[in-house]
């Protein structure tokens, strides 16, 4: 293994260990809430990164998949008596199926058609959630979700009630989701996705079918976003049309752009920083959001292309530096 590789492995192990140990140090609900938020957004942002950063499709549909997963899980658990696990999984599968439908219908036209369709889809989701009252109970939503339980291997009956329980649930899922995304982006499938983003015609001329890779990225990100929505909603204890709020879209877009589209670790890092940043700025309540905006602008001035883009430019500069000519 290379030196950079082992350094990375060590820091990932350290980071994961620290995150897992947090509830043993503090029962502080606010800290755990930040952890839940980080875990949830990391799945949404990494999924968006897969679609936008690796495959080059600007998508506003993530929040739609997130909300579809949330509603599906809630309705199946409440009305059909499904378990949390199967309900969330079904939410993910339904979101992926919807993703394939909107992707297949719009991607055969163009990337721009897809961006527009994904935006309309997200807005439509909110309208459906508000107006299909017989299914979703309309704008009041479904409050007072029950405490979910989960049967773990070994006959343990886990009651997911305390903030620490949700913290472990979502962090555990986020780790599994990140691992899946990591396996894909570092495989030759990820390489083909980058090829499609960097030069679609060239990729086609080399036998790569762009539509297949775009749909794969979209379906995987929708599956994970739907499933995390199904889990996260029980932490919220309510599902209402605000689960489709533009706030989620905006936040995950900022995370991906700051981290650097197409950079797995960059986006993960920016998700962590941007989850903690609004909290770190709480010392000044009035100026908090102003400072947040200021930090965002400053980062974009220093790192256009995000953290990943900065690393890429440094790599380029190293190769462009004049070297002694080969004789």
């Amino acid at each position, binding site marked *: 293994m290379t030196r950079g590789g082992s350094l990375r492995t060590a820091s990932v192990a350290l980071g994961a260990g620290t995150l897992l140990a947090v509830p043993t140090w503090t029962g502080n609900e606010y800290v755990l809430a930040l952890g839940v938020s980080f875990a949830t957004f990391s799945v949404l942002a990494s999924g968006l990164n897969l679609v936008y950063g690796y495959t080059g499709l600007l998508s506003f549909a993530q929040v739609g998949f997130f909300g579809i997963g949330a509603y599906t899980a809630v309705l199946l658990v409440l009305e059909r008596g499904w378990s949390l696990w199967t309900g969330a999984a079904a939410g993910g599968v339904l979101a992926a199926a919807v993703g394939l439908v909107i992707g297949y219908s719009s991607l055969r036209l163009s990337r721009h058609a897809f961006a527009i369709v994904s935006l309309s889809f997200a807005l439509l989701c909110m309208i459906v959630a508000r107006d299909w009252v017989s299914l979703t109970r309309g704008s009041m939503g479904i409050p007072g979700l029950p405490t979910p339980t989960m049967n773990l291997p070994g006959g343990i009956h886990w009651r997911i009630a305390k903030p620490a329980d949700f913290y472990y649930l979502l962090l555990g899922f986020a780790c599994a989701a990140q691992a899946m995304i990591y*396996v*894909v982006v570092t*495989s*030759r*499938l990820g*390489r*083909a996705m*980058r*090829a499609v983003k*960097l*030069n679609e*015609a*060239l*990729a*086609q*001329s*080399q*036998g*790569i*079918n*762009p539509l297949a890779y775009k749909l*794969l990225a979209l379906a995987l990100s929708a599956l994970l976003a739907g499933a995390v929505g199904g889990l996260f909603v029980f932490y919220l204890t309510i599902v209402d049309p605000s689960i489709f709020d533009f706030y989620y879209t905006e936040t995950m877009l900022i995370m991906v752009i700051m981290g650097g589209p*197409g950079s797995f670790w960059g986006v993960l890092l920016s998700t962590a920083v941007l989850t903690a940043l609004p909290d770190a700025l709480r010392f000044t309540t009035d100026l908090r959001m102003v400072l947040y905006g200021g930090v965002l602008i400053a980062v974009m001035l220093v790192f256009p292309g995000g953290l990943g883009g900065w690393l*890429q430019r440094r*790599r*380029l500069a190293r*190769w*462009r530096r004049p070297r002694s000519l*080969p004789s």
Partner: protein
Amino acid sequence: MTAAPPVLDVRGLSKRYLGLTAVDDLSYSVEAGTVVGMIGPNGSGKSTSIDCISGFQPADGGQWFLDGRELTGLRPSQIAHAGLIRTFQNVRAYEEMTLLENLCVASQESDGVGWLRALGRGGRLRRAEAAAQARGRDLLASVGLAEYAGAPAAILSYGQRKLLAIAASMMARPRLVVLDEPVAGVNPTMIRRIEQVIHALNAEGVTLLIIEHNVDFVMSLCRRVIVLESGRKIADGPPGVIRSDPRVLAAYLGKTRATELAAGGV
């Protein structure tokens, strides 16, 4: 004589844009192991015909076959799978990828490793990747870019990118490579290098169709040249014959000057 079918067989290819006929009932074939040149003035339909047979533009008429297998109407990726690889006039490369990655991508869809195996990372995938890297390094060496194998393609000059594109087109061991203007805008030293690379590849048995503006380059490289004008084939033969063909002279030089030359006996 019952010869094997030609590598490429194009029959009656047509392409119209509104009122303009860009390619008009074009038929030609390319025999295995040859290097065929295709020349013609601006707007004669060279690139359009290539865009059609490689699936990037829908043709309005005609059929075309690779080794006797019909490719008409297939998607670009399917045509590439079938063994027809083309390069682009405006050079294309994956700028952020290293040169070696640029080459490995080019063969990954044709080495039979499916999606599940690609994720599983088993022995078959590792062998396929190792083979692609070895071939990639060989090809980089043969086009003189070996020292940049680990560099991002963005650092390459225009001429170097053309070499990279030629190397990439060979990765999947295609039946036919169509080079769209491989030397346009390239300096003379690089032109000689590209010429050597093409000779070397042809010696290995690769069949090539070369679309070019640079008439001298094509005449010195190819034993057979096809000339297009206004979407039609006006001449097809060895360079010596093409050079003195009155219709070719007229197409390139204008009717009057061509007649003068013909009379003066060039």
